[in-house]
């Protein structure tokens, strides 16, 4: 029944598309929603270099950290590295977007070997691991590679676990297992700004075998990272605000979803407090779950992980780390950093810089993307511009 609904919807969208095309075709997705007076704006998404940067040329020394912390390049040669996840036997799996590949990094006595274990996938940015199997979320599907760590040199053909409804833009995904053993992912709005089809603009979950699909959070423009609180086990996720509405509006946001089914406002209400002049007519922001925190406009939060280790000073325990890839749709760059959020019951969230220095004026020097923790409590950060993974550690 659901499939029938989708195909009818697809036809309606297609019909609208064709009728528009006779006069004016839709602009490229990144430009959609740009007001006419900004038509000659030089702002555009930051293009990705065709090759990863060798470790010796990555300006990792520009990254500033709190006292006692240090950063180094842990692995390079991972073109377009995005989400990371550990296998049970110590393999680090790394997804990508436009490199269309998935990597496995094997640590051999301090030297890291990088293997390509899957290629030709459609923006396979999300990776998750459970019971010996690697799960990869690409735009059309979730794939499962069983017993992967015993077969890194000749990976098994994947099983298709789940097929997503169509829509490429904003549908590269994060993927992770929740404390309930289910796979969580985003289905972003297929536009900069629009009334999304019912199937999109949400965070959702399925069982590891692809059954039991459920929407978890509605009205989410594009969530690119999430985690579950180490104590309460409740879901926290970030979302990107729309483009072309100003340098400082709307904010990207951090959300808290203590239960499923909440609506977070897209496209009716921006950043919890600004009703949209078109889609929000007759609505009120009070109808929707407000964000827990405004993160800044265009900062592009991605990697979102709670710290549960004990290597970092005690104040970091259970804090949320948010990597921010940084802005493109803003005249002065913002983001390009890692922030932390302290969440204490009854207190306002405390939002602090952890790592910064990844841009100088208009030049992007590095782009912190996703976060994964080492077993000793130190931190790995991927950089999809340089195709590298950094190691951030702490010494008293």
């Amino acid at each position, binding site marked *: 029944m659901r499939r029938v609904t989708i195909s009818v919807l697809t036809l309606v969208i297609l019909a609208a598309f064709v009728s528009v095309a006779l006069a*004016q075709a839709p*602009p*490229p997705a990144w430009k959609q929603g740009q007001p006419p007076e900004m038509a000659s704006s030089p702002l555009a998404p930051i*293009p990705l270099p*065709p090759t990863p940067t060798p470790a010796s040329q990555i300006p990792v020394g520009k990254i500033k950290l709190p006292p006692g912390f240090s950063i180094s390049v842990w692995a390079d040669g991972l073109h377009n590295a995005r989400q990371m996840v550990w296998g049970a036997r110590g393999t680090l799996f790394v997804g990508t977007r436009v490199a269309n590949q998935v990597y496995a990094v094997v640590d051999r006595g301090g030297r890291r070997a990088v293997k390509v274990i899957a*290629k030709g996938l459609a923006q396979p940015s999300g990776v998750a691991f459970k019971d010996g199997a690697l799960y990869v979320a690409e735009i059309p599907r979730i794939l499962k590679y069983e017993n992967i760590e015993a077969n890194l040199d000749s990976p098994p053909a994947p099983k298709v676990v789940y097929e997503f409804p169509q829509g*490429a833009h904003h549908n590269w995904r994060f993927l992770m297992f929740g404390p309930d053993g289910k796979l969580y992912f985003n289905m972003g709005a297929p536009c900069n700004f629009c009334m999304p089809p019912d199937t999109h603009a949400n965070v959702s979950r399925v069982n590891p075998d692809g059954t039991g699909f459920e929407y978890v959070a509605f009205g989410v423009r594009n969530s690119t990272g999430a985690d579950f609180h180490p104590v309460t086990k409740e879901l926290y996720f970030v979302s990107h605000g729309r483009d072309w509405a100003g340098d400082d509006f709307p904010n990207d946001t951090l959300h808290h979803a203590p239960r499923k089914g909440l609506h977070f406002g897209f496209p009716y209400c921006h950043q919890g407090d600004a009703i949209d002049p078109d889609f929000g007519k007759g609505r009120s922001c009070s109808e929707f779950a407000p964000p827990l925190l405004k993160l800044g406009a265009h900062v592009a939060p991605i990697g979102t992980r709670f710290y549960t280790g004990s290597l970092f000073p005690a104040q970091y325990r259970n804090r949320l780390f948010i990597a921010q890839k940084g802005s493109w749709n803003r005249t002065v760059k913002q983001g390009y950093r890692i922030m932390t959020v302290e969440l204490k019951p009854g207190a306002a969230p405390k939002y602090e810089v952890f790592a910064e220095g990844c841009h100088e004026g208009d030049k992007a020097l590095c782009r912190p993307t996703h976060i994964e923790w080492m077993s000793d409590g130190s931190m790995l950060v991927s950089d999809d511009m340089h195709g590298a993974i950094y190691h951030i550690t702490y010494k008293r």
Partner: protein
Amino acid sequence: MEAGRKKASPCAACHGPDGNAATPGTPSLAGQPAWFTHWALIKYRDGRRKDPLMSPFAANLSDADMADLAAYYAAQPPQARPQVVDPAKAAEGRRLVDAHHCTSCHRPDLSGQHHVPRIAGQDLVYLVRLLRAYRAQTVGDLDGFMTAAAQPLSDAAIESLAHYMATLPASPSGR
């Protein structure tokens, strides 16, 4: 540059010694943004683009080979292609370039930038073939923007766009 010049010798038969091709159907590489040529080679190597000549050639290239070739061709001055263009189609194509937002990524003079190719002054037959391939989704693009842009194009619109692009001066991208 010198490394790229040497590595480009097998390419010269089709693309010309300096990347200015003369054969209809073969694109000119001179003055193309280096990242465009490099990404195109990556796509031939990983199968997102397929061609009986280019696929086997790219299969054996390293990232360094691709970077050398891309830098060499980016530095060569592009020349106009001698080709017969239909002025009526070109006039219609000029209108369609605006209606289909080609300049959003390819720049106002269609000279390309970053990973986006120069299409001004490119070969007519090649432009038609590639636009049809994007429409048929038999050629993969990085981010889906060209695939989306090609979907509403009729055969006639593709012809017109190509005729207009072919009339434009082949100015180098400059980046």
